[in-house]
């Protein structure tokens, strides 16, 4: 019985990134119409073609219906209740260096464990810090420039590298791809833009930290990463938001382009505010992430999802080129009344393409955790290979764990394997640990960490440590 008490305690732990930053903001009143889109575009001083692109997306969005196929339940979202642009007032006059940035903003990131002063940072990680709708600072830009790497907010890239943006924006996730991607295309605010030139191995990890601060706002960032032939980049993404009673919307789009021979590794630790124990508040996280692999290229998605009231997210890889590789490693933890419907799509088009999917779902409390995946082998994808493993761990008898894998094969030389298991933290395992003097909380955390090990080992070192801790904190109190 004491085990149960410990588990419960672990599940009920608090959200540590739930504070708010009090800065004066320019926030658009809630509502969505063409005027709002024109305002955002003007605020960012965008060229006309971007505005037209946005408006075209808005038109498509108006004709689309909210998708209902996911295993999630929420009251209908009133898109006119959301504010689509919010920026700290101090950012209006575009600070030229970190010294000019409002110290309150810098303190926010420090509190979250992401110091933006370069000397204080872990050498080897460049950060783009996005606060509501704007990018606050991007570190190590000059150093990156030395090797030709471009790392800047998308709003700047539109001006400075219009030919790249024109060529690639929307090339992987078109404007009308799905409901939330269309919404994002219409109102996207800041995000990161990365370009790695031919044959360059990016000298440091790139990272973006997303923070939602203002009440009643949504965040709609858009990230575009282009890895030119033979290049290599590792990109990290983190996110948090204050604790509020309302549901805030986050609808992002991420596009990856891995040109021949390039490798992109994209890691996410998602820790948006998950709502309280009764399911009040929390972020609605509707994200479209997709990458295209050309010949011999590789895209690897790794994600640790612990936050958000609702997670709706399917990082996908289109294996267009021959010999390309797609990977997806995921840990999704839900507790209290969180709902996650997440997974991946691997579309095999080229010959000798390979994909690996490892998904670990942990659900506790009254949460719902679903894996939804698609592996499609097109008739031309000779010798395609896929391996999928989906494991679920249930903690408590009121949660749900689900698996919805779609497997479509149209080529006789392809080999596909899928397996899924469901288990719980067994009394035997707990007993064994406790017998050796390990307290129950630690024991559960060890078991869960062991369960997730295959995914954690794919994360960059700093992230792996953070993810491990996050899981520990999130699970605090869920063990008995």
């Amino acid at each position, binding site marked *: 019985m004491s085990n149960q008490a410990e588990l419960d305690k672990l599940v009920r732990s608090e959200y540590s990134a739930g504070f708010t930053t009090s800065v004066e903001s320019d926030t658009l009143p809630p509502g969505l119409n063409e005027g709002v889109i024109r305002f955002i575009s003007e605020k960012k001083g965008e060229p006309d073609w971007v505005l037209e692109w946005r408006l075209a997306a808005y038109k498509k969005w108006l004709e689309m219906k909210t998708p209902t196929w996911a295993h999630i339940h929420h009251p209908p979202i009133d898109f006119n209740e959301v504010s689509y642009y919010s920026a700290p007032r101090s950012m209006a006059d575009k600070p030229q260096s970190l010294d000019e940035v409002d110290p309150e903003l810098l303190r926010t990131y420090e509190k979250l464990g992401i110091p933006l002063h370069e000397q204080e940072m872990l050498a080897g990680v460049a950060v783009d810090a996005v606060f509501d709708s704007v990018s606050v600072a991007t570190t190590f830009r000059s150093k990156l420039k030395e090797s030709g790497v471009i790392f800047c907010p998308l709003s700047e890239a539109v001006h400075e590298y219009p030919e790249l943006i024109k060529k690639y924006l929307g090339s992987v996730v078109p404007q009308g791809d799905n409901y939330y991607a269309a919404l994002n295309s219409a109102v996207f605010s800041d995000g990161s833009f990365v370009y790695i030139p031919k044959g360059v191995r990016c000298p440091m990890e790139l990272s973006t930290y997303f923070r939602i601060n203002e009440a009643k706002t949504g965040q709609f960032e858009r990230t575009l990463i282009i890895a030119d032939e033979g290049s290599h980049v590792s990109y990290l993404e983190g996110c948090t938001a204050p604790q509020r009673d309302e549901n805030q919307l986050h609808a992002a789009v991420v596009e990856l382009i891995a040109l021949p021979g390039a490798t992109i590794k994209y890691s996410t630790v998602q820790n948006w505010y998950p709502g309280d124990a009764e399911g009040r508040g929390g972020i609605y996280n509707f994200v479209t992430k997709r990458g295209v692999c050309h010949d011999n290229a590789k895209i690897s998605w790794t994600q640790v999802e612990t936050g958000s009231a609702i997670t709706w997210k399917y990082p996908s890889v289109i294996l267009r080129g021959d010999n390309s590789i797609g990977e997806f490693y995921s840990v999704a933890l839900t507790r209290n009344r969180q709902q996650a419907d997440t997974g991946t799509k691997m579309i095999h088009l080229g010959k000798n393409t390979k994909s690996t999917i490892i998904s670990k779902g942990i659900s506790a409390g009254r949460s719902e955790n679903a894996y939804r995946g698609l592996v499609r082998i097109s008739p031309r994808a000779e010798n395609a290979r896929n391996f999928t493993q989906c494991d*679920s761990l249930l903690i408590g*008898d009121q949660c749900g764990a689900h698996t919805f894998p779609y497997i479509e*094969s149209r080529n006789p030389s392809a080999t*596909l394997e899928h397996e899924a298991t469901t288990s719980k933290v067994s009394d035997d395992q707990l007993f064994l640990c406790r017998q050796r003097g390990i307290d129950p909380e630690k024991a559960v955390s060890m078991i869960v960490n062991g369960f997730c090990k295959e995914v954690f080992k794919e994360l960059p070192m700093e992230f792996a440590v953070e993810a491990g801790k996050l899981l520990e904190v999130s699970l605090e109190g869920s063990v008995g």
Partner: protein
Amino acid sequence: MMLPDTLKEQALAGAALLDKELQEQAKQQSPHASNGLSAVRDAGRVALAEQVFPDKKVEQWKYTSLLALQNGHLKALADKTSSTVSAPDFGGVTLTIINGRLPALLPEIDGVTFSQEAVDQSAQAESVFSHYNAATLRAALTIKVAKGTHVAEPLHLIIISESDSPASAAVRLHIEAADNSTFTVIEHYVGSGPTLCSSTTSLYAGANSNVQHYRLQSETPESLHIGELSIHQQRDSRVASYQLMQANTLRRNNVRVWMNESGADLVMRGVFIARNKTHVDNQICIEHAAPHCTSDQIFKGIAGESGKAVFNGRIHIHPGAKGSDAKLSNKNLLLSNGAEIDSKPELEIYNDDVKCAHGTTVGQMDSQQQFYLQSRGISAEAAKRMLGVGFINELLMALPNERVAEWARDWLSASL
């Protein structure tokens, strides 16, 4: 007009026409011929009018198109009393249903009652086709096995659909095996011509009963079959269901098993083969609604030459169904370019104290094995067939009824 609307119109017209014909027949015959069927048909037509035929946007019909139905299949087959189609003999008692019509004399087995009672199955309707089935029934068959009865010999139901032009026949079977009974039933669907067989079968396994169920579908490739099977298990009942099928123009099976009381045990085995532009779609759902039930499913599929095989296996563990143990394995062989296999094993689990696992593979014939056989003078063709038979033989060998196993091996290997 859009396909779903066209189909609905045809289905309603077909059902109305049949109903008129049967009512006139009933007038001529003595009134005792009434067995409540007319009411079932009326209810079916009402439900049908309210329903929408699915298109590919409906999740459950994502991989199966109903386009083949628009050639006029949705009208009743002509009434027939004899048929040229033959079926193998598996021993035991046989009962032949031709184009939805029951024989004049129903068989007699000790402890088993046969009747023409039409049991209302609308509560278990899986799709619009359940209502189409109800609306176009010529007859219905209810089989009740009394408490504690042990029937040694199998009951062999031969269900024939025969016609030269597109049309459909509805078959409705209701089987109740009461507490502590033992019973074996073989549903064997055969036929000729471009017929649509619309079948619904419900099987109730009482407490501690032991039911063996075979569903053999060996109709010709030009036929169509849309069938529904529901199995309801009481406390400690044991059901083994063997489903062997050859794909045809359109084959769709909706299968749902309700494990309503604790201790129920289910074994399900299936083989499906799709060759030469044929289509087979199995949608299986196991509802673990009570604690401590076990289910074990193995399905093997083969697709070649633009054949398409779809498999959806769902395991649903309800809240409170603790101690559930559910397994599902779906292994597939994809033989050639142009063929397609779509498999979706699903788990939906609302309890932590369970053991659930599923596995799916899609692969090809092992080229080394093929080489081995060819190097010993076996032709490529024969080697492929041997390996194909080897792939499914594991399941065929485990069939408890040897006569069925033997016949199935010949039948399935001929289709490879």
